[in-house]
């Protein structure tokens, strides 16, 4: 189906289903209940899930397939954001040209950086990308202020030209980003009993683009080009002995993943039309590395899961404060309750980074294939148990 194998097609269908019904799935608690603050189904967060999902899918095409660990991918995201906001300022508030331009600019930018960085491999490549990204960040923060807005970031203004659209709305406000009149922030609220679900235009646009990017990623993974990238990862020296020049392939992978990052940046600016230099800082690059590894580098669905998990931690898990913990453990005797809360408290709420760091270390140590590998291991263990139960008389082969 669609040029995919059956297994991949099923995966694609699952992803489509999940993104389509995300506003419902992520809102399991009734509105107004105490647990409602742990609902993740509000537009802002859901947009972030899918946008960072796109970012991580793109990063995975580079790192997961070729093994080149870039520590500077946030630069492309930042460039994408800046180009999208400039499009809003100069052309119109339609998101389509903005997103297209951000992909193109990020592609060009990543071509230049990739062309230079890919002359080296291993840790030297990581340091080079890190150096370029930090340079872009420093320049965006200081010298390039006329283009980037410097510390305050790039924002829309009432006197922007916007040659194809209105500079301001009838009521004298800055217009909001829209897709042919469909405003990104427009939402449809649906109430079912005690539950409230929000269906947001911006989210569905981003989700549609994420599904398309996911489909593209599957095609790349299964193509001869993807196979070539894997070959480079497993043994680049041998590849060059066979007379193959591997650099065009790695460069293509680098540019593709840079364009994915630019796409994510453009979408981010479309949802909220401003761009700041901090999006390019190396901690932001580190974040996408965390997402990809956590979910499972080199797997298809892993990066999306990792992105969702980190954003969930950042926005929801960080809300658990000591009061909530006391409510949860209220059934315990007082002394024990205080003890348990004291133990858990450093790991939740504001300390979510600590939990993230520990989980990340555990994943790197025990599950180099990320959470996806963990899931596969569990599934395999269950299946083995089932087959063992089915034919108890089977003898084990001699070791």
């Amino acid at each position, binding site marked *: 189906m669609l040029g995919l194998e059956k297994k991949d097609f099923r995966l694609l269908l699952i992803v489509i289903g999940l993104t389509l019904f995300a506003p419902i799935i992520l809102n399991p608690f009734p509105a107004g209940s105490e647990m409602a603050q742990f609902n993740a189904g509000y537009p802002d967060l859901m947009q972030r899930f899918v946008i960072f999902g796109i970012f991580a899918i793109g990063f995975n095409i580079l790192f997961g397939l070729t093994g080149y*660990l870039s520590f500077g991918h946030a630069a492309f995201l930042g460039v994408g954001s800046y180009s999208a906001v400039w499009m809003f300022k100069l052309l119109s508030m339609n998101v389509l040209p903005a997103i297209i331009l951000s992909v193109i600019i990020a592609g060009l930018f990543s071509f230049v950086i990739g062309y230079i960085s890919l002359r080296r491999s291993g840790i030297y490549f990581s*340091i080079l990308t*890190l150096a370029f990204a930090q*340079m872009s960040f420093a320049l965006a923060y200081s*010298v390039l202020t006329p283009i980037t807005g410097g510390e305050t970031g790039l924002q829309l203004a009432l006197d922007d030209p916007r040659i194809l659209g209105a500079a301001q709305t009838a009521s004298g406000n800055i217009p909001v980003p829209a897709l042919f009149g469909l405003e990104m922030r427009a939402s449809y609220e649906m109430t079912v009993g005690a539950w409230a679900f929000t269906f947001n235009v911006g989210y569905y646009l981003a989700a549609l683009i994420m599904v398309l990017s996911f489909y593209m990623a599957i095609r790349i993974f299964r193509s001869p080009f993807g196979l070539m990238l894997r070959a480079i990862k497993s043994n*680049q020296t041998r590849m060059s002995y066979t007379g193959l020049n591997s650099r065009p392939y790695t460069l293509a992978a680098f540019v593709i993943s840079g364009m994915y990052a630019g796409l994510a940046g453009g979408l981010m600016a479309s949802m909220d039309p401003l761009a700041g230099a901090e999006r390019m800082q190396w901690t932001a690059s580190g974040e996408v590395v965390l997402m990809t*590894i956590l979910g499972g580098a080199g797997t298809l669905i892993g990066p999306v899961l990792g992105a969702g998990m980190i954003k969930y931690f950042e926005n929801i898990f960080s809300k658990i404060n000591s009061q909530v913990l006391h409510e949860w453990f209220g059934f315990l005797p007082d002394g024990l309750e205080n003890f348990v809360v004291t133990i858990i408290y450093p790991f939740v709420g504001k300390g979510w980074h600590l939990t993230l760091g520990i989980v*990340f*270390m555990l994943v790197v140590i025990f599950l180099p294939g990320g959470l996806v590998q963990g899931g596969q291991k569990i599934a395999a263990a269950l299946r083995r148990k089932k087959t063992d139960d089915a034919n108890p008389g089977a003898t084990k082969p001699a070791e």
Partner: protein
Amino acid sequence: MDQFILQILNGLDKGSAYALIALGLTLIFGTLGVVNFAHGALFMLGSFCAVTLSKLLSLSHKVVDETRTDFLGNPLQVDVPYVHDWFGVATGDAIIDWAVPLSLLFATPVMIGIGFIMERGLIKHFYKRPHADQILVTFGLAIVIQEVVKYYYGANPIPTPAPSAFKGSFDFGVLIGFDVNAIIYPYWRLVYFFFSLVIIGAVFAFLRFTTFGMVVRAGMADRETVGLLGIDIDKRFTIMFGIAAAVAGLAGVMYVPINPPNYHMGMDFLVLSFVVVVVGGMGSLPGAVAAGFLLGILESFASTAWAVSNLPGINQVIIYLVAIIILLTRPRGLMGRKGVMEE
């Protein structure tokens, strides 16, 4: 000319910090072959050793002072540090004043201990794994250390002063025949520079002139053969990891008066130190030290008004620019051997 000398001096203290961190990174890489992204966190832990000791020393209890009264006429309660009770007022004050240098004594065993635990507990299991895995796991460890420090010390920088004997600045210009106030340089930065020279000298002397150091150098050159000769090289490398951790920690201790420590200072320094290591040449100890000072001084020259007005933004990017040029033209770095880390 005086400006020139001033910029060199200004570059020295940051250069010293770069050189010390890069030295530790290179020691770990040269001996164990591990790329340690948590090294900046060790530097930061050293700084917080100094903060902790200075807080501990100024712990105090309340004493009613009969000779003074507050505005209501009641006897005034005064905070008296415990060290006053134990050593007398004059000595006690001196101890509190010298908290940062005293932290060196406190930080050395602590940092060596942390280094041992890190190597035995975690890094040991990563010798055979790819460099990317080593980078990732130590990156995760750095996040964990950072967050633990943030939990206990808060997110704000904690100013901790240098001993009052080193407050103020030193008029270096007068010494070599310039006008008064032409070249002035804070005393503590001078102390930091000489301190780093001592540490660097000590590490080199240790490797050069002791039997232990000789074995370690032999192990760096050919680990397998040294092992075949019946020497427990792993144990010695663990000790070297502890020493590298201590070097980073001590660099952090002495840096506290220059830059009030906060939980993410380690990461800020780490990125630059990696660039320094790469410029100096992966695996080359003299290269790391030389590149540390060189980049520190270059950075200081690039932040002069003249440089910034001619090349806007140069002060922000100079280190990365140098790194990019070096990596592309001379990938092994200034003094590196060929083929290190080229996977």
